[in-house]
């Protein structure tokens, strides 16, 4: 059969990126994927600068959605406080960058620290929570409490005593330099010695950097969830007792995925701080925590692509609504409730399933159409 040949070609080039843990395995999907990437890459050609700056921010939301999707959708560990790692990443990046910019001339260390510190924080929290075998609901709520505690703490650091080297924590004023002599909070500057590559948050280059990183993280996670580790994650989600009976240490699995998710959220925080050269305690707040949950739940928590589409579309909708008035969050909440009632698996996931069934029907009826064979069988 012709479609099988196509499939083997896909398998040869995409390997582990294609697997039953992710929706979209056939030629049509990857064609669409390429088309979307091309369109996104061409956006700067026909969109205004202001819109490109907004788009960079949407893409940053995508990281957070992927992070929560991996954690909640694949491993079944819900965190209502995923913004904690986003915020810690952002603040770490800012503090380290402010301190090292004059000495190094780049933000390499800050970039790495902004990813490593949230990962370590997740390691400590996860070690405590998973090894105490706390129930999932408790973990979800405790993470929210952790994030709100960060917010509460940072809000009361407006006192000038709260400085770390050249960084003034700033409370509700947001992170800023400690004295007029210190450098301003920088955008991303990668470099070694003299040669530096700067990505101004308002530039097209920053947009391409974010797009590239998001693509890399997306493909990396696709590979991860279709590897044996991904099957293990789903095993823990579906039946943790049985997975444990098979000899896996589920606490270790949960801890590791918690750390990976935190690293991605931290990366998002770094990009966010670099994007606006600003970070505020709000990033730990209620709104910052509930939005990723809405994106992932509405898009479809059990699939990376669905969660990513959910984040990008809803962020776009949110910006449009914000122009109308103070109704953005109200509509987001309503979308969440309605979507969970009507499509418990998420809107994008459900749509994908309908398309899949339609193609299966077309194949059965007319004996052709559809180039993604076997997929409906693998779904069941």
């Amino acid at each position, binding site marked *: 059969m012709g479609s099988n040949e196509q499939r083997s070609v896909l398998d040869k080039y995409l390997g582990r990126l294609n697997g039953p843990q992710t929706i979209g395995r056939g030629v049509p999907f990857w064609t669409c994927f390429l088309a979307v990437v091309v369109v996104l890459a061409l956006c700067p050609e026909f969109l205004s600068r202001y819109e490109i700056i907004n788009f960079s921010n949407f893409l940053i939301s995508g990281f957070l959605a992927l992070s929560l999707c991996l954690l*909640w959708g694949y491993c*079944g560990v*819900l965190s*209502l406080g995923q913004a904690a790692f986003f915020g810690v990443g952002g603040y770490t990046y800012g503090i380290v960058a402010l301190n090292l910019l004059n000495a190094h001339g780049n933000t390499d260390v800050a970039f790495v620290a902004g990813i490593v510190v949230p990962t370590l924080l997740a390691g400590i929290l996860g070690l*405590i929570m998973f090894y*105490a*075998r*706390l*129930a*999932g*609901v*408790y973990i*979800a*709520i*405790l993470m*929210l*409490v952790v994030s*709100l*505690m960060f917010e*509460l*703490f940072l809000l*009361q650091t407006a006192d000038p005593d709260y400085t770390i080297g050249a960084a003034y924590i700033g409370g509700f004023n947001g992170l800023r330099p400690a004295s007029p002599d210190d450098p301003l909070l920088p955008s991303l500057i990668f470099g070694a010695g003299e040669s530096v590559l700067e990505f101004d948050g308002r530039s097209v280059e920053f947009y391409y950097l974010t797009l590239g990183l998001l693509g890399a993280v997306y493909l990396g996670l696709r590979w991860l969830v279709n590897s044996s580790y991904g099957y293990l994650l789903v095993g823990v989600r579906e039946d943790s007792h049985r997975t444990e009976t098979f000899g896996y240490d589920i606490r270790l699995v949960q801890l590791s995925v918690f750390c990976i998710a935190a690293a991605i959220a931290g990366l998002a925080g770094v990009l966010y701080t670099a994007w606006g050269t600003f970070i505020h305690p709000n990033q730990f707040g*209620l709104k910052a925590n*509930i939005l990723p*949950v*809405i994106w992932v*739940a509405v898009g479809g928590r059990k699939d990376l692509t669905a969660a990513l589409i959910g984040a990008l579309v809803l962020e776009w909708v949110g910006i449009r609504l914000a122009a109308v008035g*103070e*109704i953005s*969050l*109200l509509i*987001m*909440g*309503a979308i*969440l*409730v309605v979507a*969970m*009632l009507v499509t*418990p698996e998420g809107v994008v996931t459900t749509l994908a399933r309908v398309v899949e069934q339609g193609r299966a029907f077309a194949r059965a009826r007319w004996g052709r159409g559809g180039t993604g064979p076997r997929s409906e069988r693998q779904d069941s």
Partner: protein
Amino acid sequence: METVSIIFSFIYQYADNIGFLLLAAVGLIIIFGMMGVINMAHGELMMIGAYITAFAYHAGVPAPIAIIFAGIGSGLAGIVLERLVIRFFYRQLLSSLVVTWGISLVLTEGFLLIFGPSILNVPTPFGSFGVGELTFGIYRLVLFGVALLLIGLIWALFSYTRFGARARATMENPEMAEAFGINTSRMYALTFGLGSALGGIAGGMFALTATISPFFGVNYTLFAFITVVVGGGANVITGVTTSAAALAGAQTIVNNAWSVYVGYVSMMLAAFLILLILPRGISEYLERRKIRVAKKNG
């Protein structure tokens, strides 16, 4: 004289903090503690109660009756929520967490849109009394008393009435209860409504001391959850009272030694630590101990 007033102030604060936790938790004791239903919008049901109280009070209704109105209003709102949304998520804990969080967002933002961010105030009744050089508000002690009274009533309701027996049967084994002719789905709606009504009453009580805004509910939800979770499910009433006593103890001591923020953090830390040592809550431990002692003696 000085030391007496300091000691009294300490006891007063402790009672105040316990009262706060118990009153915040009083509706969730039934909804989450007993029925095992998650409701992140509990604080918003309390907020509805607070708004009803404030509007009724400003319309000339005496405060106690306004608070009863709040209970009725929140109870009805709770039943509507349960029927419309929550009942579809009984078997999926994490999803119910998320969907009720969405409801809480809708309620908060909806109230913000309708009533604006402006803050409503209801004067605190009863005035104050002095011990030594310090003065204390009487109403805070009333809150503490009402919290204990409500918890006593819940206990009596669930221990001695037909309704309580049916509710306990429903949460123990829904299929079996159904087989005995109990309408479990109505039981869930009623207990949810009762818990919401208690939340509304608590919200109304708090309305007389706290500022009322659409963002009224968030903190109560979290504190209530933590109190009930630390209390554990083996014996909800003793669990919640001991956990409130323990958490408020940590908070009061640290509050006085450092600052209010550190007080909150220490309370969260205490909750965290208790859960690490006793992942199923305090009451589980107490019940096990009771059984052990009984075995030794028998």
